């Protein structure tokens, strides 16, 4: 066992601990929750410092027998693709724990559920076995279902059910794809390193295409891309703030992470052949998500649609990275940009959803028309919202810009007309995103006060402590991203050369 297992299961252990002591007061429960998150984050930071990124290899690897009959193992490890996501996950869960200091309803169950989800999310990013990956993938859906159904508002039970059925269906299609990979491998195995080393179905393009289709659909639903995105807006709208932050910040990345971790390196031939499809889906998601977001009056639905837009950039990038004709440097840039975008979007959208949670806590509404002029009475809230909005619209100096610039430059620089045209279209998305976020600022923070504005008191210390670090990290990545890029780059270079095989 390595420290990685400890990182993964420490939150679960804490959850069991909380269940074991039913007499604890709510306040104590939350502080214990925060303590577990802090300890976990400290371990992740230690792992980061101890990880030798230069080689791009797998670190903290552990491989135990689990289901030997199908050659599935408890195989975990981190590399430059997963470590940044694991770190982002630990940060975001800690932020949610701190944010929940003001949570009043069924605190213990809430904390336990989140700790459970944290283990699941960390485990997924660390998994090096398809079956293990799938188990975590499924459990994340179950956990989030209870979060939305149990602590949501509005039409939350229906939204939770839609979320569950839709993404569970996606998971089943994904499982179909995984079984295809298993069957295609010789000898049959679920082990991801082996599947990456010798890609299955190398000589049979037809079945490989079908398997890629299954894996692609499964991941696309989770990401989500157009047209399989419609579970996302209602799930977000009716979820509690911390749930939305995790759903958008961490769980959407499971889809995009699957592309770079599974689809690209394990099915290189098929990926190269169908990379254009990823580009098309990516560009459509970018523009479609932005346009629909532009028309929303409900703040949370709006942020949900911007997630479709932002994940579209990632899909575009992984598509461009698969173009065989493309320039190698450009493709590495696109892939690195994709992973950077996953981290960046987690931080920024996490902050945005927590901020919308603050708004709902005060005014009990997400309708932007009911607010206005908040900047006067709640300047700190306004300042944080403005920073988060500008980060999300890709202002240089913040992390979104670093990610998106790499994606666009990599796509245009790949030298193929199709990718360049796609990227140019997608860049139009940044104009729409600017318009829609300024519209948000304009309607909520500026102008004459709305009917609910008077209720909006400024941000509390605990809320500030949860949100400000996320934005500070986004700023640090925007100004000095080397610490992050140097970890991602060797791994994305490896992915690109795997795809090029």
């Amino acid at each position: 066992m390595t420290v990685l297992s400890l990182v993964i299961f420490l939150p679960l252990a804490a959850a069991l601990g909380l269940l074991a002591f039913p007499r604890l007061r709510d306040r104590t429960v939350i502080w214990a929750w925060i303590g577990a998150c802090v300890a976990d984050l400290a371990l992740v930071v230690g792992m980061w410092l101890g990880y030798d990124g230069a080689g791009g290899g797998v670190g903290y690897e552990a491989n135990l027998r689990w289901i030997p009959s199908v050659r599935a193992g408890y195989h975990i490890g981190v590399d430059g693709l997963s470590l940044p996501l694991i770190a982002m996950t630990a940060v975001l869960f800690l932020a949610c724990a701190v944010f929940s200091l003001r949570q009043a309803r069924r605190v213990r169950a809430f904390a336990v559920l989140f700790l459970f989800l944290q283990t699941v999310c960390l485990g997924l990013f660390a998994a090096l076995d398809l079956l293990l990956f799938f188990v975590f993938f499924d459990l994340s859906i179950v956990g989030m279902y209870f979060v939305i159904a149990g602590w949501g508002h509005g039409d939350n039970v229906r939204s939770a059910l839609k979320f569950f059925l839709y993404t569970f269906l996606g998971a089943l299609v994904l499982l179909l794809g995984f079984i295809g990979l298993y069957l295609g491998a010789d000898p049959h195995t679920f082990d991801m390193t082996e599947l990456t080393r010798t890609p299955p179905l190398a000589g049979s393009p037809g079945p490989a295409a079908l398997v890629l289709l299954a894996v692609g659909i499964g991941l696309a639903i989770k990401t989500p891309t157009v047209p399989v995105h419609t579970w996302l807006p209602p799930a977000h709208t009716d979820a509690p703030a911390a749930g939305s932050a995790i759903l958008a910040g961490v769980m959407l990345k499971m889809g995009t992470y699957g592309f770079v971790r599974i689809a690209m390196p394990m099915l290189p031939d098929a990926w190269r052949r169908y990379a254009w499809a990823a580009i098309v889906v990516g560009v459509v998601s970018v523009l479609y998500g932005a346009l629909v977001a532009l028309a929303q009056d409900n703040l949370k639905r709006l942020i949900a649609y911007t997630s479709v837009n932002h994940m579209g950039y990632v899909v575009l990038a992984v598509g461009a990275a698969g173009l065989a004709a493309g320039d190698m440097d450009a493709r590495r840039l696109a892939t690195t940009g994709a992973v950077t975008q996953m981290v960046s979007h987690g931080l920024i959208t996490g902050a945005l959803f927590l901020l919308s949670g603050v708004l709902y806590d005060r005014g009990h509404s997400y309708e932007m028309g009911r607010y206005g002029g908040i900047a006067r009475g709640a300047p700190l809230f306004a300042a944080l919202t403005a920073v988060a909005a500008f980060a999300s619209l890709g202002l240089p100096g913040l992390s979104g810009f670093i990610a998106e610039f790499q994606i666009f430059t990599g796509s245009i620089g790949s030298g193929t007309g199709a990718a360049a045209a796609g990227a140019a279209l997608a860049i139009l998305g940044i104009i729409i995103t600017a318009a829609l976020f300024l519209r948000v600022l304009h309607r909520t923070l500026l102008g004459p006060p709305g009917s609910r504005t008077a209720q909006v008191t400024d941000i509390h210390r605990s809320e500030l402590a949860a949100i400000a670090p996320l934005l500070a990290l986004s700023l640090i990545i925007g100004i000095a991203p080397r610490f992050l890029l140097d970890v991602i780059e060797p791994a994305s270079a490896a992915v690109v050369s795997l795809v090029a095989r």
Partner: protein
Amino acid sequence: MHATQAEGVQSLVWLLIALPLASAAVLLVGGRRTDKWGHLLGCATPLAGFGIGVAAFVQMLGYPAEERARTLHLYEWIAVGGFNVDVGLLLDPLSVSFVLLITGVGSLIHIYSIGYMSHDTDRRRFFAYLNLFIAAMLLLVLADNYLALYVGWEGVGLASYLLIGFWQFKPSAAVAAKKAFVVNRVGDFGLSVAIMVMFGAFGVVSFTGVFGAVEGASKGLVTAVGLLLLLGACGKSAQLPLQTWLLDAMEGPTPVSALIHAATMVTAGVYLIVRSGPIFDLSPDARLVVAIVGAATLLVGAIIGCAKDDIKKGLAGSTMSQIGYMILAAGLGPVGYAFAIMHLLTHGFFKAGLFLGAGSVMHAMNDEVDMRRYGGLYRVMPWTFVTFGFGYLAIIGIPPFSGFFSKDKIIETAFNKGGTSGWILGACALLGAGITAYYMTRMVLMTFFGERRWSDDAHPHESPPVMVGPMVLLALGSIFAGLLLTLGGRFQDFLAPVVGESPEHGVHAISPVVLTLITLLVVIGGGIAAYVQYGRRTVPVVAPAGSFATVAARKDLYGDAINESLIMRPGQWLTRLTVFFDSRGVDGLVNTVAATIGGTSGRVRRLQTGFVRSYALSMFFGAALVIGALLLVRL
């Protein structure tokens, strides 16, 4: 372009950016605690920057002309595969000119703002944003590569957004801020795609790298990059077709209009084109488009300026027009670059002075901006009148005031371009000079002369010394800057290592002396026309209906209407269509499928008989199926 590492004072130029940035951070994070001394800190940083700038400039003068470009490497920013971008600064004659303008005029406007904003409870925040602007603007002009330039480019856009919307309780200000940012983003689209294409084609984004590689590039690529850069310039510098935001931007406090929307930020497009000279040198087509955009905007801006009764909007139209001159000059190639920058510097002085004068008048008149409500102010506001007057003489180009030297050269260079295009561009520039004289004379007459048309509660008074001081200094610049820069071709020689020597061509379309005389006649003609209309007759308090042309000019020549019908309306339709498609089409399909399954399962539910034996049977069949499948797989 050869550049060595900066030494001595020049190695401190990073402080130019760091100081105002740190100050902005202190003021924003410190909040109300810094209210007492916030404005002083805010003024101290650009002043310190000016000190560093002057020292760096003096040190530069000590070097021989060819060794004046110095770089300062700060840190590695992005390094992914072959894509390496460092944050580095480039100090050369071009960037140091901008540093002096930005910190010099910037300091004066900061000081002026102490007085102008003294009644505002949020004065500290105002200074924080101004400092943020100074930092971003200095990064823009000091960056040694396009990507770092882009950071500054967007940074000034952010500061501009924050400052236009500073009085956020005014709905019009919030709308104007939003519009400015979004229209600028359209321009940013051009600039960012240009940078990405540079990386795709050359693998680098540094100035030296790109300029070195561009000579081997295909003509089509160079022209494309040039036009994309021009799109960026059009957004930032309010040139056609992205000009509409600047007039609305006047919603911001007047010092902002003076600093950002007159003297510095809006000239960034000119800087971009001149800095990218080696690219434009290789593409006559792109250059011609630049010149056409400049010529068209200089006329449009001037015509709009003629019809505005709002003193700030009049000046905004004028700013568009004057930047049109600079863009026109930049489009004329190496012969024009130095004149473009020279006009940019003189314009920085006189236009900032004019705006501060307008602010002083507004300050005195309870924030009234309608010139029809002014009149006869020269008696009550002598300092404002005199400083405004020098700015007026400078902008219309009366010798020996500064605008004369720079504008006259642009008109001359346009004619000298030769060919039909040279005649047309020259004629536009000449006509523009006449219109400029007309609208500026109109403005001076309506504001300072004639009978008093003040509203009842107006009690105008001269502004306090903290405001008058900067106005006086800018007026001095309006008087002498042009002469000092032109004497003996001094500024041209100074810039030559960056923009190239302007060839001593003997081809003159019209003899320079004759052209200068013609220009002066046109200018005087414009002035007399305005005098006949506004000096000899009384100015009505309510604007007359006006001819078709006047109405069109009042509506900014329908710039907004065109944008609305070409972009906004179709955009809204597209948005609505997408939303409809999303909820009815995509999600509707999902829901239909779900409902169908729900209906089916209602029927299937009858299978749930509650009898264990039937369950056992189905389990048996299921297990058999799974085992069968597994066996099949093993085989």
